[in-house]
């Protein structure tokens, strides 16, 4: 047996083997594509078997034999064109022309072969060249459109088709014009074809694993950092995108347990969540039945939501439950416009991705839990610090009150007629007042802590608020400079609380300005819906790296000494919480030339519509979940 004969034998065995493989597959999943695949390799197998039988029984020279071989062989391009239609769709006329041309070639082979053998052979060559070439081109084009493992399998199919057609044409040419060179190349091309077809139509599992690996790695690379992403919706959207990319699908959605029992919520493309019953949509079915669902015609499978599937061009829907051990976590759904070409690979991938997503979501849950515990510990620690700091600050005036009172007591006991210790009495009164202020400061902070910061909101002219503050300080002989806007600015505020904030800021400004220069009050519009109140001083200023921290509880700027600061370090904290409760913001910036400027930004009512009295500040608006129709 020569090497050439060995190759031919190998080709024949492989083609028959491939036929058996696709036969097995078609019997298990009798789809149109698997039947057409069977047709392709069935025709080749028939040719191979006939050729063997012919050699064994010396049928080579009979016309009947040649006609049968030609007809059987001509089925192959027809099957290819039909597969092109299955994989990527073709215009109807292509199928009609293909069928008619096949009829012509078959008729010629059966009725005219004996008469005009060479013309018939040329016709078969043309048939292969045109139709087979078109199919090979269409497979290659489809390969560039698909992704992942499908793309690789499609590429192999295209290559197989190309080599097969070349091998058949060369075999015919060799019959017409025999050359040793062509006799060599033909079987080699056929060998390449059958190997490529094997990879495309029946890839062994180790090849599949190798092909899947890059997609999986890509998915993991994209999604691994998401367990740390704080916004759960954002994280899910990213995983969805990564999953859709891994499939080359139109889209993917992930549903997780909703806020109500018996619901699933899905991140909405427009922000927020959409929530459905946990058996609604094909996704819900997969979740509630805890099984994978493949629907090649989603609108028919779930007519209730047909319009949703149609608007998303989701004809094929594959849904798999996301489960960790026995725990139901959610569901992963993949949409595609057309049925997947090699659906078994996609099914395998979706289950794998669902498993990976389960791990990711679990990691997120753990991270959230850990953060929750940390924040509770932090809250407990802050409370402890709060109590400890509060106790410390209360003890100093208490020491004076207690000590002075006991002194008075003792003096009285020793000499009831002694003159009153005026200085001692003054100290007691002063420190008692200080205690009272500290206690009310503490209670204010505590109240804010519990969230009841806004108490009595009403539409107010902010100019009036500033004037009230100004007047109070003028009564103490401090005539502050005041700058007002030309148009009055109205905002919905709790006037008493806002005045407290401004009082506090002005008192701070006075406290930290040694040279006696008075602070300045400025009101201005910061756009149509924003008002800005500024308290400008020319005092010691605040180091820039402390601009944020001075608004924290118990924080005191490092460059001021407690000699002048008798408060608890709660003043600015109370200011911040109050302003934030109004839907505003407070910050500090340096005053040009030295000192600090505290800016309070508040939402203002638009000047054009002063009658809109029902505007609610954003901070107290109830977040509404948008209910966009979405799968």
């Amino acid at each position, binding site marked *: 047996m020569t090497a050439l004969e060995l190759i031919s034998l190998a080709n024949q065995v492989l083609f028959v083997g491939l036929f058996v493989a696709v036969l097995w597959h078609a019997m298990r999943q009798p789809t149109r594509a698997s039947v057409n695949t069977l047709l392709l390799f069935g025709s080749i197998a028939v040719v191979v078997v006939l050729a063997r039988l012919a050699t064994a029984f010396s049928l080579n020279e009979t016309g009947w034999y040649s006609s049968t071989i030609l007809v059987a062989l001509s089925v192959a391009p027809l099957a290819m064109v039909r597969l092109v239609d299955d994989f990527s769709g073709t215009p109807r006329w292509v199928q009609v022309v293909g069928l008619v041309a096949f009829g012509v070639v078959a008729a010629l082979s059966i009725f005219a072969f004996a008469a005009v053998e060479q013309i018939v052979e040329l016709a078969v060559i043309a048939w292969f060249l045109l139709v087979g070439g078109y199919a090979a081109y269409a497979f290659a084009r489809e390969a560039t459109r698909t992704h992942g493992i499908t793309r690789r399998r499609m590429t192999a199919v295209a290559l197989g088709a190309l080599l097969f057609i070349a091998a058949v044409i060369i075999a015919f040419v060799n019959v017409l014009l025999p050359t040793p060179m062509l006799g060599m190349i033909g079987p080699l091309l056929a060998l390449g074809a059958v190997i490529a077809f094997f990879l495309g139509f029946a890839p062994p599992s180790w090849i599949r694993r190798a092909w899947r690996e890059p997609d999986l790695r890509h998915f993991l690379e994209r999604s691994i950092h998401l367990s740390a992403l704080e916004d759960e919706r954002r994280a899910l959207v990213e995983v969805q995108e990564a999953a859709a990319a891994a499939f080359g699908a139109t889209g993917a959605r992930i549903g997780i347990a909703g806020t109500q029992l018996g619901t699933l919520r899905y991140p909405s493309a427009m922000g927020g969540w959409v929530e459905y019953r946990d058996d609604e949509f094909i996704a819900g079915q997969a979740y509630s039945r805890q099984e994978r669902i493949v629907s090649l015609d989603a609108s028919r499978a779930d007519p209730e939501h047909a319009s949703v599937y149609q608007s998303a061009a989701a004809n094929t829907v594959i849904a798999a439950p996301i489960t960790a051990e026995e725990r139901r976590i959610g569901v992963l759904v993949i949409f595609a416009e057309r049925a997947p070409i090699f659906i078994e690979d996609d099914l395998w991938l979706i289950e794998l991705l669902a498993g990976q997503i389960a791990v990711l979501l679990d990691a997120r849950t753990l991270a959230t839990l850990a953060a929750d515990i940390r924040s509770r510990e932090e809250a407990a620690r802050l409370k402890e610090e709060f109590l400890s700091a509060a106790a410390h600050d209360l*003890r100093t005036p*208490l020491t004076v009150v207690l000590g002075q009172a006991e002194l008075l007591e*003792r003096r009285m006991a020793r000499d009831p007629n002694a003159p009153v210790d005026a200085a*001692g009495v003054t*100290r007691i009164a002063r420190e008692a007042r200080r205690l009272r202020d500290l206690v009310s400061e503490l209670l204010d902070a505590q109240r804010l802590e519990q969230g009841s910061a806004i108490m009595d909101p009403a539409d107010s002219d902010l100019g009036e608020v500033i004037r009230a503050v100004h007047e109070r300080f003028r009564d103490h002989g401090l005539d502050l400079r005041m700058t007002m806007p030309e148009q009055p600015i109205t905002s919905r505020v709790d006037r008493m609380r806002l005045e407290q904030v401004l009082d506090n800021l002005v008192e701070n400004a006075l406290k930290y300005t040694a040279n006696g220069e008075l602070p300045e009050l400025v009101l201005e519009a910061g756009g149509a819906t924003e008002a800005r109140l500024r308290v400008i001083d020319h005092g010691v200023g605040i180091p820039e790296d402390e601009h944020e921290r001075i608004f924290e509880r118990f924080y005191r700027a490092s460059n001021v000494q*407690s000699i002048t600061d008798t408060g608890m370090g709660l003043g600015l904290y109370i200011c911040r919480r109050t302003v934030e409760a109004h839907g505003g913001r407070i910050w500090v910036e340096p005053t040009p030339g030295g000192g600090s400027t505290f800016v309070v930004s508040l939402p203002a009512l638009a000047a054009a519509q002063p009658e809109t009295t029902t505007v609610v500040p954003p901070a107290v608006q109830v977040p509404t979940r948008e209910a966009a129709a979405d799968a």
Partner: protein
Amino acid sequence: MPDVRVLVVDDEPDIRATVSAMLEIEGYEVTEAANGAEALHEIEDRAPDVILLDMRMPVLDGWGFAAELRRRGHRTPIVVMTAARDAAHWASEIAAAAFVAKPFGFDDLIAAVEQVSTQELTKPQVATVDPPSQPGPP
């Protein structure tokens, strides 16, 4: 209690005034300092017999003052007075003879000063004086 000199170191003027008045009515001789640096200046002229020391002060705090005092070789007993919860811990940290936790009453203060001023100075030890304070974490 004649001829016992006490130095009161605290940044709060009202505390100084109150403590001084308590001590004076009991017959102690009192001088005052608003922080550790002033206190060091005070003891240059004439060392007191007892030092009443606040811990948290500007310029030079209680720890800095105590360290400098010992470095200069003074063995004057110190009574720590602080509003912090870990008064006992701080007192032992600077090897103080006693402590009083704010707010302290007349008797607490006098008892501590009396005990320290009559103690042998060669046996430094921390005396716990009511009201007892829980030691805090280090």
